[in-house]
């Protein structure tokens, strides 16, 4: 809500948005998940989308990736409206986007190397030698050199995330999406993944969108943070701005305090007795 008007020193890149979300409203069945989200993500920044479970952050990510159709509103990626793209144009756009899924989503029937080279084999006509070199190059970037012949089941949790990053950046995308990059990892490994995200931005100059509920990780890597709560954006701001926010819900989120709904005695009684009227 309080979008910073001045671009602070910690926000690199220009103000030109790579992703524009306008009044995005979505439903899951009859339940409304996102209540009109408006959000810009700028070129070259690391935007962390933060919120507790049920805040709608995963849903927002799926919409940014074009995996779901919104009820209303629109998502524009690199200037193209996802809803109005032809299938071919959408495929071309997707070559400019890389995604590291929460569980890695590596194909269990392929080796790590084949996983990483799949986009190259499907979208380019490069010969096998060049592909092998590019795979090794990306494995070096994520510190997994020499692991290309292993199967995903032979990797540890942190290594799977690294391999997923290598696959996500194999086509040198302009946009990198990371879903819960540090979830399920021990603090040391999680911190190494955060360093990897910072390194990728540094080395490859991508715009990176990270969805997470981990505060430490968010504060460490973010240029700006979007705080989601129950389908609404509570605030968009730099790490400092979010930290110093006076908003009570943000404060509770930061202090990991569960927020109780104020109890209405009549409603409460109805819920307990199971009577609807």
């Amino acid at each position, binding site marked *: 809500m309080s979008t910073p008007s001045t671009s602070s020193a910690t926000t690199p890149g220009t103000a030109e948005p790579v992703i524009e979300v306008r009044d995005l409203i979505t439903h899951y069945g009859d339940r409304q998940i996102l209540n009109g989200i408006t959000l810009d993500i700028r070129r070259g920044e690391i935007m962390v989308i933060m919120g507790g479970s049920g805040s709608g952050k995963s849903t927002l990510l*799926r919409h940014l*990736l*074009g*995996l779901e159709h919104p009820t209303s509103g629109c998502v524009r990626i690199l200037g193209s409206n996802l809803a109005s793209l032809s299938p*071919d144009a*959408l*495929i*071309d756009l*997707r*070559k400019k*986007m890389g*995604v590291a*899924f*929460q*569980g890695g*989503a*590596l*194909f*269990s029937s392929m080796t790590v190397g084949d996983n990483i080279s*799949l*986009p190259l084999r*499907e*979208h380019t006509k490069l010969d096998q030698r060049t592909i092998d070199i590019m795979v090794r190059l990306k494995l070096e970037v994520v510190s997994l050199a020499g692991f290309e012949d292993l199967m995903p089941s032979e990797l540890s949790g942190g290594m799977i995330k690294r391999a997923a990053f290598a696959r996500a950046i194999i086509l040198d995308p302009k946009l990198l*999406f990371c879903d819960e990059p540090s979830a399920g990892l021990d603090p040391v490994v999680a911190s190494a993944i955060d360093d990897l995200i910072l390194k990728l931005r540094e080395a490859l100059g991508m715009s990176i969108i990270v969805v997470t509920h981990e505060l430490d990780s968010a504060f460490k890597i973010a240029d700006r943070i979007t705080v989601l709560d129950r389908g609404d954006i509570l605030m968009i701001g730099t790490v400092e701005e979010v930290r110093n926010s006076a908003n009570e819900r943000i404060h509770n989120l930061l202090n990991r305090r569960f927020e109780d709904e104020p109890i209405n005695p009549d409603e409460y009684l109805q819920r307990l007795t199971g009577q*609807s009227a």
Partner: protein
Amino acid sequence: MSTSDGEPGFIERLGRRTASGVEEFGFGAALLGEASYWIAVGHWRRQPVRLDAVIVQMMEIGIFAIPIVSILSAAIGAMLAIQGIDTLRTFGAESQVVIGIAIGVTREFSPMITGIVVAGRSGSALAARLGTMKINEEIAALTVMGIEPVRFLAAPALLAMVVMLPALTFWSDIVAMLGAGLYVTADLGITMQAFFDQTLAVLDVGDLLHGLAKSLLFAVLVTVVGVLNGASVAGGAEGVGRVTTRAVVHSIAAIVIADMVVAFLLTR
């Protein structure tokens, strides 16, 4: 119709079931159309269906199924011979058993048993693989990489299935006849040569094609049911188990019903 807001009544449940059944037919048709589209024009749209993926599936669906299909086919051939001779003996017409075996095997038993074996082996495997991939977000990963999941996963399976199921059925025809021949020659005291001469004399190419055409239809049914069930998975590992069972039961039901309908249409 409904007693309260929470619990739908019988009519409403029936309606919803019917609607979702019709919906599934629609999804099936769409899937078949899309997979055929990629097989036909994928190459020109620079999104080809990969031959190596098709070959992997062919091995899995066809070659590795040869032992079990052979055993079952030989057993069914012998079973037909036993029952046929026993029944025809009442009329003293044992020597006519050959025609019953030849027609029964090529038109009905081989396509049906092969279809059921492939549904159990490969339809379930397809549903389980796709279901697991969906749960692990591998399908979403394919989509966001700009790789059509239908082209990448369903089309090779469809292509492999429509080639291998008729091929297996043809193999099953031969083995079942061999199984029947072994019993007939022993019981009626004729030579294997005589048995096969008689078989070829009574057997029409139309009988063979009748069976092979049905196996082609079964191939499509098993693939579509397997893919649809795999793609509809929800609820983790337990969900994968559920859709796998569902895929097998539904494809066997589809095979038997389709067999009956086709038999009616083709023999009228």
